[in-house]
């Protein structure tokens, strides 16, 4: 909750909650892990920006960048990154049926169909990325 909204709340008694409250239950850990995938999303954005910048700096600079990308510790970290962004995708698309209530001729489209449509969009988007990246290789 946005703390600004609390300004005008009456000062009722609140129990103090320990900082690591979310370690107590699996579903809480899952929730925090889901929220922390955003850190890996930001990392992907920064790395993609760096890569685009290196592309513009010429073939030699890009080759050095690719060599750096292939260093084992970084590849290990990128495997973790992939795991995190897939977790982001699965949890994000999983929310779609809750966020999107679509009606066709007055009847609600079943949430399974909304979910499947989103997974289909993911498959198509991944296919387009693969086609665009590997088309010239």
């Amino acid at each position, binding site marked *: 909750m946005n703390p600004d909204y609390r300004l005008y709340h009456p000062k009722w008694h609140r129990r103090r909650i320990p900082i690591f409250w979310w370690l107590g239950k699996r579903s809480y850990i899952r929730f925090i892990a889901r929220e922390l995938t955003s850190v890996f999303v930001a990392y992907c*954005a920064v790395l993609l920006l760096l890569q685009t910048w290196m592309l513009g700096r010429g073939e030699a600079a890009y080759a050095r960048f690719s060599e750096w990308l292939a260093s084992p510790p970084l590849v290990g970290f990128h495997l973790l990154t992939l795991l995190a962004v897939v977790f982001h995708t699965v949890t994000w698309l999983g929310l779609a049926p809750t966020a999107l209530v679509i009606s066709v001729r007055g009847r609600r489209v079943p949430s399974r169909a909304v979910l499947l449509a989103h997974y289909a969009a993911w498959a198509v988007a991944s296919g387009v990325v693969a086609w665009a990246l590997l088309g010239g290789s």
Partner: protein
Amino acid sequence: MSRRSDEAGLWLSFSSGGMLAALLFPAIAFLFWIGPALGWTPSPAYDHLVGLVRHPLVRVLLFALISLSMFHWAHRFRYTLYDGLQLYHLNHLIAVVTYGLATVLSLVAGFVVVTV
């Protein structure tokens, strides 16, 4: 910083960034940063990639993906700090740092995709 009126726009960039990242980053991460390094997928050729990033549509998409992903992070991470670590007293500082970083990176991304 967080009047109700700002909240809708921030939420919109959070959710569109979340969607773009969800649809595109798994494939990009695998085909760019893992597959070629481990020899699982071919390494995209340099000339091909340069041609790709200079395509007008790709420039727009790259900018949108990078910028909105950063705003997605800013919004989600901000609330994780509140709820997870209960840093309620640092409300404004956290908002300035997260959205500020997203704004700066968006400006850099705009410059890079236009000049690449």
